């Protein structure tokens, strides 16, 4: 017997659950700027979530998928992406969309059931929210292929959940990203749950990052509640991608602090202790304690920022609520570049019906 392959998965953590530094800090983390910015954006995301859930509860928004617990992953990754990089998100990445410049009112529009929430000018070439699990991973590979074919220096980022790692799309994507050495970074938000199905029922593999080994690509596991570890992994992965050095799979270990969506009731399947443990590790408090300890953030900063955030979000809500729905004709106007005759007729009927107020 000989050994024909050996592989391993590193785990990165710089700041533990008690906000203690456990690793030599990189230079950028020795100054306040980036970390404070991360913190501020994570707070916006968390506040936005609370508001969105409240809107849903009062019938002013559709089913909503909270990002509580993955703010660090989203904020850090989106911050490190360049404008010309391409984000191929799943449905839980509004924090990324926000950091990439999408208006909060546009995010609300999406969750309010309006396709215009997928068409923000700020989204540029980013993909819209992806609901069919894991399919986005292959779109990211397609985008990355185009980038490679055109010899561009851009990276593609595809986000997915732990549940999504069981679906063929993800594994096919890892494989083609490997064999074509595509400029793509896959980031798993391993929040331990796929609706009610716990991580342990998705795979017996001790890490999800090791799925990279099957595809012959680099895989890493990072503490997804630790912005510093995230920054280090994601930044290097993005650089490798842009430099044509191939794809990376990053498993960011987090915890879903909310129900799956507002349509879910996690108390049916999740023990309160598990949730409590999740809150003990959560990214915002962890960073706040660190910033406090460094003297980079204090109560008064906090109060001011919360005020600012509240205003910002309220403005977004107002703008969202004031946005009138699209006309009935919009059901037809974006289906094809040129509307076929049969649909022109159906469009007339839909407009007439709408004009009559029959609906």
């Amino acid at each position, binding site marked *: 017997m000989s050994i024909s392959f050996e592989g391993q998965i590193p785990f990165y953590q710089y700041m533990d659950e008690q906000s203690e530094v456990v690793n030599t800090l990189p230079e950028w983390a020795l100054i306040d700027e980036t970390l404070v910015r991360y913190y501020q954006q994570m707070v916006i995301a968390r506040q936005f979530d609370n508001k969105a859930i409240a809107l849903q509860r009062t019938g002013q928004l559709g*089913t909503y998928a909270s990002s509580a617990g993955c703010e660090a992953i989203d904020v850090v990754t989106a911050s490190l992406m360049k404008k010309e990089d391409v984000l191929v998100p799943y449905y839980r990445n509004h924090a990324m969309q926000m950091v990439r410049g999408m208006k909060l009112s546009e995010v609300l529009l999406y969750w*309010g059931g*309006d396709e215009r929430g997928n068409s923000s000018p700020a989204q540029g070439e980013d993909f819209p929210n992806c*609901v*069919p699990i894991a399919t986005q991973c292959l779109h990211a590979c397609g985008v990355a292929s185009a980038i490679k074919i055109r010899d561009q220096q851009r990276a593609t980022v595809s986000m997915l959940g732990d*549940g999504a790692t069981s679906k063929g799309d993800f594994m096919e994507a890892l494989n083609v990203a490997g064999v074509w050495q595509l400029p793509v970074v896959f980031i798993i938000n391993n929040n331990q749950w796929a609706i009610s199905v716990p991580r342990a029922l998705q795979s017996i593999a001790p890490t999800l990052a090791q799925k990279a080994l099957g595809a012959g690509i680099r895989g890493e596991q990072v503490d997804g509640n630790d912005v510093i570890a995230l920054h280090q992994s994601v930044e290097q992965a993005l650089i490798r991608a842009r430099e044509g050095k191939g794809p990376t799979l990053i498993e960011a270990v987090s915890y879903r602090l909310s129900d799956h969506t507002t349509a879910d009731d996690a108390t049916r399947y999740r023990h309160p202790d598990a949730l409590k443990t999740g809150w003990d590790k959560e990214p915002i408090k962890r960073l706040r304690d660190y910033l406090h300890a460094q003297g980079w953030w204090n109560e008064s900063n906090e109060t001011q920022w919360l005020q600012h955030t509240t205003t910002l979000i309220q403005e977004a809500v107002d703008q969202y609520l004031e946005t009138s729905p699209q006309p*009935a004709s919009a*059901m037809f106007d974006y289906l094809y570049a040129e509307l076929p005759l049969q649909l022109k007729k159906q469009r007339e009927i839909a407009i007439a019906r709408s004009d009559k107020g029959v*609906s």
Partner: protein
Amino acid sequence: MSTQQAICMVEAINLALHHAMRNDDDVVLLGEDVGTNGGVFRATIGLKESFGMKRVMDTPLAENMIAGLSIGMAAQGLKPIAEIQFLGFIFPAMEHIICHAARLRNRTRGRLSCPLVIRAPYGGGIHAPEHHSESTEAIFAQIPGLRVVIPSSPQRAYGLLLSAIQNPDPVIFLEPKRIYRSQNQIVEDNGQALPLDTCFTLREGADISLISWGAMIKETLEAADHLADEGIQCEVIDVASMNPLDRETILASVGKTGRCVIIQEAPLSCSVGSEIASLLASEALMDLRAPVARVAGYDTVMPYFRLEDQYMPLTIQIIDAAKRTMEFA
């Protein structure tokens, strides 16, 4: 669950699942969130508790895998009931459904078979996220070797699901989620199965045939009531089985009335309604006293929910179509 209390469709489905699992050890359940959570619509609630994790399996997240596993189980003589969380997520499973489930008996000349039920909630009207509201029953209805069944009431859901489970061939069982909880009926838990290849005539009438299925039966019956007030007697037919289609009942009804409106939520083109209208064009032309009218969804992508109400066919459209059909000389 008391059988004397009126229950809604999703409860009737749950009742049928309990019944089938109690009476046949070979019946097993699998899907995403069907175990501990009891299904996102609670259709499988209590089953894991009653029958254990071995028979009620929370699967990894992969519909293709769910279908493939189910085929293997079925070939071994189990009777798997697979849940696809929403019909919009069944597409990864198409290869297994079309190339294997529907063909296993045929390909092996009966050596193996595939007694499998795939359940999936479908259709619009509950303001759900993207991809959750489409009506794509026609994709399945055209596949030789499959049966495709859609209930329209709690009682029929119970009886048809039991039949689907007992049936030795693969059945796609589509549950119109808009009416999951909209109607309560007394459902006797007596194990009584309903036939899988028969339309249900819900209302007899000599003037015009209204043909529909699933959630649109609600609006169709409303329209029939309204038309009755205006002196038009509608025959209301619930197609129930999209494949095999009970052509005889439809032909007999239109043979009697000479007029027909087909009502569906699905887009118009190449649909089950197309098949029914084409049947009439081929085999009932001389009976038809007016063009076949069709009330259907538009040939568009189902709009995201803020425009959903603009898409859904309405009772008033059925009434208008029926009146126009009646006026035809």
